[in-house]
């Protein structure tokens, strides 16, 4: 799992490995983060997820070795 910008600062973490049950949904990653970092709860409604560098919905089914990215609202440009 990779975290960016405000999500990275809230969790004080840019990258970590997470063990999940087989066929977990991508959104489970956010449950984990909210449990570990209460401050993440406020950010959560605005987070978008990506798996292997493509945006996905939170019900996307994860596979072993997938890279999940936690992406706050973007502000490029």
């Amino acid at each position, binding site marked *: 799992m990779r975290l960016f*910008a405000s999500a990275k600062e809230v969790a004080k973490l840019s990258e970590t490995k997470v063990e999940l049950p087989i066929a977990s949904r991508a959104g489970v990653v956010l449950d984990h983060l909210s449990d570990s970092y209460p401050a993440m709860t406020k950010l959560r409604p605005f987070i*978008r997820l990506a798996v292997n*560098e493509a945006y996905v919905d939170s019900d996307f089914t994860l596979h072993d070795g997938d890279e999940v*990215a936690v992406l*706050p609202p*973007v*502000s*490029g440009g």
Partner: protein
Amino acid sequence: MVKIVEQSIETSELIDSVVSPGAGGIDIFLGTTRNTSKGKDVLTLYYEAYVPMALKLMGEIEREVRERWKISAITIIHRIGEVPVTEASVGIAVAAPHRKEAFEACRYAIDELKRRVPIWKKEVYKDGAVWVENAEALMKDGGSGEGKRN
């Protein structure tokens, strides 16, 4: 061509990258660091990117532009790291046979970049710093990746 760089965006290189004999015009957009934001003095900006995904989505925008408009060439460059006041964080150049296509394609590219490409900016003030959120990114269909809004 799409690129993410850590140094200054050189406008002459940006222009050179799209020069083509079939072009009748080149449209350039530069996004530059402004010294104020919502009434606060901005000292500088820091940009962070999820680089491999950002490059993919910038490439996706380039493909969409080429499908929608008859253009000769397009370059999209984003700078990351610190971008001081007055300097460019993003540069887009579009060369096309006619100016209408160049203007429209350039505008589409910057609008879509701001909406979906995973890059973030942090505004640094005298008394703190804040991660910014683009209004476009907060819309319901923000970043769907298909450019459906047209």
